[in-house]
């Protein structure tokens, strides 16, 4: 569709684009990325034919741009530049109608019925029909953007060039516009070449990306190749973190604001408040968490941690919202809280603190053993019954995602070992239990101080977690058994 071969050029002696080549297939959305001054707009002007190239060729549908007459070119390529200024009060309709210029012939260029239908349709597609008779200078930036998009659309182009199309749009219009573009490329075979400032939007919507730096291509490929931390850092000179989109296989880039070195915040055993009904921690600053708790599960950042006692007979259809209500009633912010529940008496919860080689960990375990399960034999069971060992591992340190997951593994292994050594039996299979039926875990790290890439059983952090969880769990089991023996 569009073939750019070895082009170079710029403005009056200043070379801005250097020896650039790429091609765009029909029906693609092709994104141009790059820092300010990297030549994005210049490149787009060259493709639209308003800026001649010094060397190299640009071909549209197999023919060089220079072989098209201005009107023929405008029938094939339409542009949505950064907003043109307009001194005079044209109405929206007049502005959109100008897009039919390349199709008009004769001296006075009247609009035909067909022209009017195309204009009407484009205004509906861009949702500006109601603005029809307004002067464009009275419109907001986003509305103007849509007017000029409609003007480009009535040119019935095969190639649409956009210069930061989402610039003036709010998030809903950004999504609507980009979805529409995607839709048009798929249904009408429209090809789109667009400059983006927002790497993440580009990654979401573009089939292919061109990354420019100083007028040269750093990468031309699909988003999963172009969007990697190294390349982006090299081009933009800022450190960013790559994340996968939760729903799509499209990488997303997150920037990390510069932080002044804060005093390291430390969680200690004394911070844990323990009553009969509740064990909780209100941390002075949020901790990064990985948890299986009903509130605040998954990865996140939380500053309050709650383990709540409920009666054995607690049975609620929607325990999540019941828990949320409970938190609110007790003055906890549910959006900043990780909350678990247990039937165990919380006075029997064990809190311990371990430290070695400058690494410190606080461990909280509560154990209710009423429903111990052997994972290897749980397949023989039916029905759900609850029993809970809740484990918190609060780490003063910085953890990678791997370290978070390894912390969970290490803690689980230690817990299982504790149950084995205490000879806790699965009452159904009569084998040694590996846990109870609704165990929950929380790993929380301050993300300050020493960095831990791993937390397996032989790392310093893993050792502390393994030992701490093992000992605390044994102690909690014993306390629980004592209390059950009493009752």
């Amino acid at each position, binding site marked *: 569709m569009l073939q750019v071969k070895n082009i170079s050029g710029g403005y009056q002696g200043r070379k801005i684009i250097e020896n650039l080549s790429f091609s765009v297939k029909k029906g693609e959305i092709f994104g141009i990325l790059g820092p300010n001054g990297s030549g994005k707009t210049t490149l787009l002007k060259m493709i639209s034919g308003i800026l001649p190239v010094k060397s190299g060729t640009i071909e549209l549908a197999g023919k060089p741009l220079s072989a098209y007459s201005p009107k023929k070119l405008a029938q094939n390529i339409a542009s949505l530049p950064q907003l043109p200024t307009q001194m005079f009060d*044209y109405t929206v309709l007049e502005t959109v109608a*100008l897009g039919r*210029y390349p199709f008009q012939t004769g001296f006075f260029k009247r609009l035909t019925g067909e022209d009017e239908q195309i204009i009407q349709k484009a205004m509906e597609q861009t949702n500006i029909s109601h603005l029809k008779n307004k002067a464009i200078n009275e419109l907001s930036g986003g509305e103007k953007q849509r007017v000029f998009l409609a*003007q480009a659309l009535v*040119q019935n182009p095969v190639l649409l060039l956009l210069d930061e199309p989402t610039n003036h749009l709010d998030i809903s219009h950004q999504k609507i516009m980009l979805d529409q573009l995607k839709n048009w490329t798929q249904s009408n075979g429209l090809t789109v070449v667009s400059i983006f400032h927002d790497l993440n939007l580009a990654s979401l919507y573009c089939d292919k990306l061109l990354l420019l730096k100083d007028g040269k291509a750093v990468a031309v490929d699909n988003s999963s190749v172009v969007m990697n931390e190294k390349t982006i850092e090299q081009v933009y000179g800022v450190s960013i973190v790559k994340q996968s989109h939760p729903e799509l296989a499209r990488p997303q880039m997150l920037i990390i604001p510069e932080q002044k070195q804060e005093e390291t915040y430390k969680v200690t055993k004394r911070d844990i408040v323990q009553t009969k009904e509740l064990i909780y921690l209100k941390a002075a600053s949020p901790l990064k968490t990985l948890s299986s708790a009903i509130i605040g599960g998954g990865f996140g950042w939380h500053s309050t941690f709650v383990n709540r006692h409920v009666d054995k007979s607690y049975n609620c259809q929607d325990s999540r919202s019941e828990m949320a209500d409970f938190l609110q009633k007790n003055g906890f912010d549910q959006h900043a809280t990780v909350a678990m529940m247990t039937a165990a008496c919380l006075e029997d919860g064990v809190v311990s603190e371990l430290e070695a080689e400058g690494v410190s960990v606080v461990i909280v375990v509560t154990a209710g053993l009423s429903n111990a399960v052997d994972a290897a034999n749980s397949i023989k069971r039916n029905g759900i019954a609850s029993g809970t060992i809740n484990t918190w591992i609060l780490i003063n340190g910085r953890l990678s995602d791997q370290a978070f997951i390894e912390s969970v593994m290490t803690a689980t292994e230690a817990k299982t070992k504790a149950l084995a050594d205490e000879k806790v039996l699965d009452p159904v299979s009569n084998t040694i239990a590996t846990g109870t039926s609704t165990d929950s875990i929380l790993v929380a790290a301050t993300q300050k101080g020493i960095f831990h890439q791993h937390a397996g059983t032989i790392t310093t952090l893993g050792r502390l977690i393994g030992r701490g969880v093992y000992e605390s769990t044994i102690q909690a089991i014993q306390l629980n058994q004592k209390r059950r023996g009493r009752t």
Partner: protein
Amino acid sequence: MRKQFIRMSTKNKHVVAYTATACFLIFSVFLGISIGTFHITFKDIFQIIFNQLFHTGLAPDIDESMKSIVLDIRLPRVVLAGLVGASLAMAGACYQGLLQNPLADPYTLGVSSGSSLGAVLVLFFGIQIPFFGSFTLPVVSIFMGFLTILAVILFANFIEKTMRIETIVLTGIILSSFLSAFISLMIALTGEELRQIVNWLLGSVAMRGWGYVLMLLPFFLIGSILIFVNGTELNALSFGEEKAKQLGVHVKRRKLFILASSSCLAGAAVAISGTIGFVGLVIPHVNRLLWGSDYRHLLPLSAIFGAAFLILADLVSRTIVSPTELPIGVITALIGAPSFAFILMKQRMERRG
């Protein structure tokens, strides 16, 4: 159904616009002929013109001298004022759109300075080219005007092949001030001709007769026809050259076309009547405010409106302190500025709601 209604309503708007401005023009023409030291009724004017055109009978109270006043003195003056007004208004509208500058007027690119210099040269040296006789002044003036715009275009093209608007404007300003310096020089050096030169520069349509009308007419016709067929291109160009190019306008060719035709109008008007200010600047704006910016209608409407306006301005200039005639440029500004201010104010207040 709804679509039809909207199409009708824009059509209606234009019907109203053309009817209203045409009535304004006809009224101005009659008023311009009617009022003077010798008052002539609308009915008599009507009869005299009809008699001249179709050889219909005349009422007995119309004598030859009255006929002569109407046909030889007032009518040519009114027609000339109308043509000059129309030319200036159209040229102004074109320059504003082409240069994307609401402050542009027919004199921005130096055409007027060129024409004026030609005229002043003729007056200063008392030149009389054989064959042209008393028409020496306008002929030299038109010629100089064209030389000027040619120089602007060539120089702009020399500096930059693409001839960006900014370059054209700057070239025009440079040349314009350079030529104005010569005019000032001659004013400074002149003795007896001072009054004549100043009067010419202030602009007038007095004492010209049909000869001047005939001289202006071809320029007027060619210029306005060339401009009319470029209405849509002017719309596109007023969104900027890049946008116009992206819309498929052959920008360089159209730019030269429009520049040449509007300079043709401006240069001829200045050569005939001197530098009458304000009309070219304000009439297009008034029409934009009244009827919208679409050049396909803005150009003819501005032309009619400009004609009517200048006829009225001329009428005021020769009657207000009669028998002395005031320079018409003074009157255009005196009437034009406040009425423009009023329209602007009204429109902005309406917009605010």
